[in-house]
């Protein structure tokens, strides 16, 4: 199998896949603990509308998806802040809007349905060199932004009111987190496809949260699960001739299931001691 990695297309797939999956996993830890795990699903549906719009207007689908998903993420933040909508209502509304718009555009421009399918199911092995460099650059920017704001994001995630009282600009960080998630979801479309990209946000992070007693540990463990999922999924895809996106997501789920059962077995989820 190592010989397979001599192929350029596989190197590109591995490099882009690993970086994007790590970005997804790191963001996922914050999103799950903020109870915003479903934002990935919402933004992937909006990215679908963006891809359909790009194909309809004959412009770069990835670029159109980026504009639509980032714009919608900002709108979701504003709606959550100011409209007084409960919980994830704003995500639900925009998610449905994205899907409906995408279906409408796909129906209007019948000639591009085949290309749209490749975005729906993902095709990491067909990733082009310019897409690799775009993905590498954006994923690195996402990880750098998280690293620069790591402490403040952690404080806000753990105790929003105290973070505000300590001078953390939580509104700006909400916006930053949503924009980074939108960018990462768009990048992840090529790895896992629109239908499965949200899994890269939720499953590795949920797996990492099963083993960690510190936040740093949770982020590290999530990244390890994500990298293992991409590497293993790509390998299985080549050996068994199965879709890479499905193999990656199923391997991540397997890791989650094993870590969950291990934790259950050790009784770590027993209620902590109280006074």
């Amino acid at each position, binding site marked *: 199998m190592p010989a397979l990695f001599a192929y350029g297309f596989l190197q590109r797939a591995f490099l882009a896949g690993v970086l994007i999956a790590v970005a997804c996993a790191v963001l996922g830890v914050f999103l799950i603990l903020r109870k915003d795990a479903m934002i990935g699903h919402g933004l992937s549906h909006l990215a679908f509308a963006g891809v359909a719009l790009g194909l309809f207007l004959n412009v770069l689908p990835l670029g159109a998806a980026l504009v639509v998903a980032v714009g919608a993420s900002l709108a979701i933040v504003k709606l959550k802040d100011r409209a007084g909508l409960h919980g994830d209502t704003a995500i639900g509304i925009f998610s449905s809007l994205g899907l409906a718009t995408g279906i409408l555009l796909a129906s209007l421009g019948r000639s591009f349905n085949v290309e749209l399918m490749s975005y729906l199911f993902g095709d990491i092995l067909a990733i082009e060199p310019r897409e690799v460099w775009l993905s590498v650059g954006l994923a690195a920017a996402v990880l750098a932004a998280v690293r620069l704001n790591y402490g403040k994001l952690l404080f806000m995630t753990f105790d929003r009111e105290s973070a505000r009282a300590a001078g953390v600009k939580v509104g700006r960080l909400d916006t930053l987190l949503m924009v980074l998630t939108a960018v990462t979801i768009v990048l992840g479309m090529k790895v896992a496809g629109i239908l499965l990209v949200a899994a890269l946000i939720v499953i590795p992070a949920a797996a990492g949260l099963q083993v960690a*007693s510190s936040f740093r540990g949770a982020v590290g463990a999530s990244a390890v699960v994500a990298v293992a999922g991409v590497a293993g999924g790509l390998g299985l895809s080549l050996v068994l001739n199965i879709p890479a996106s499905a193999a990656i997501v199923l391997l991540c789920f397997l890791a989650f299931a094993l870590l969950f059962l291990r934790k259950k077995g050790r009784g770590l989820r027993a209620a902590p001691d109280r006074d």
Partner: protein
Amino acid sequence: MSLVVLRRVAFAYERTEVLVDVDLTIEEGDFLALIGPNGSGKTTLVKIILGLLRPTAGEVEIFGRRPSEFVEWDKVGYVPQKATHIDPFFPASVEEVVGMALVAGRREGGRPGREAKGKVRRALEVVGLGELGREAIGRLSGGQQQRVFIARALVTSPRILFLDEPTTGVDAETQASFYDLLDRLNKSEGLTIVLVTHDIGIVNKHVNRVACLNQKLVYHGDHAAFCRSDAFRDLIGRGDHLISHEH
């Protein structure tokens, strides 16, 4: 020196008035109890001072600046109400929780460096938890968690500390050692403390100033005079909202 000044502060949630014409000054070195029945506006007042809520009328100054213009939040420590009602499965170590306050005011908000780790260790030693830095916060007892949040509020070496009903749900023995710690911080370190409480026993034993709130400020002065005041008799008469412990 006055650390906090409120002039004719009012606040309302939609049409419900919570605070009316509150004038209050907190001086450096005060150990002030902010007391009053449920719904009297104590927590709201603290949130207004900290800039978490905007008053509907009046002026607020903290270290001589409006909260919206104030930037030196490391001078202010805060332990919110229900601080210990955290998600017990949140994956944060005690060191991580205490270190959070150190990145809050920085331009870049990355991970704490070596100097910050030293401050975290010292803050944990002050509250008697020096050995538990690597423990997951969710696995500590309520009393230990309370001390972690005090350590987080102290790690920036603040000049004023706000505590909003910090011992709710904590046993009497842990409460006693907790208030001894606050006494020490106030008397030895000169830390100004503002304590929101229902507990008249705390007022009797530990604080030197009292502000009694019931929408309006009905009393503000020293502790001894408060115990002889009509405001005190009114509060004791209410009974249903106040508790009294011997610590």
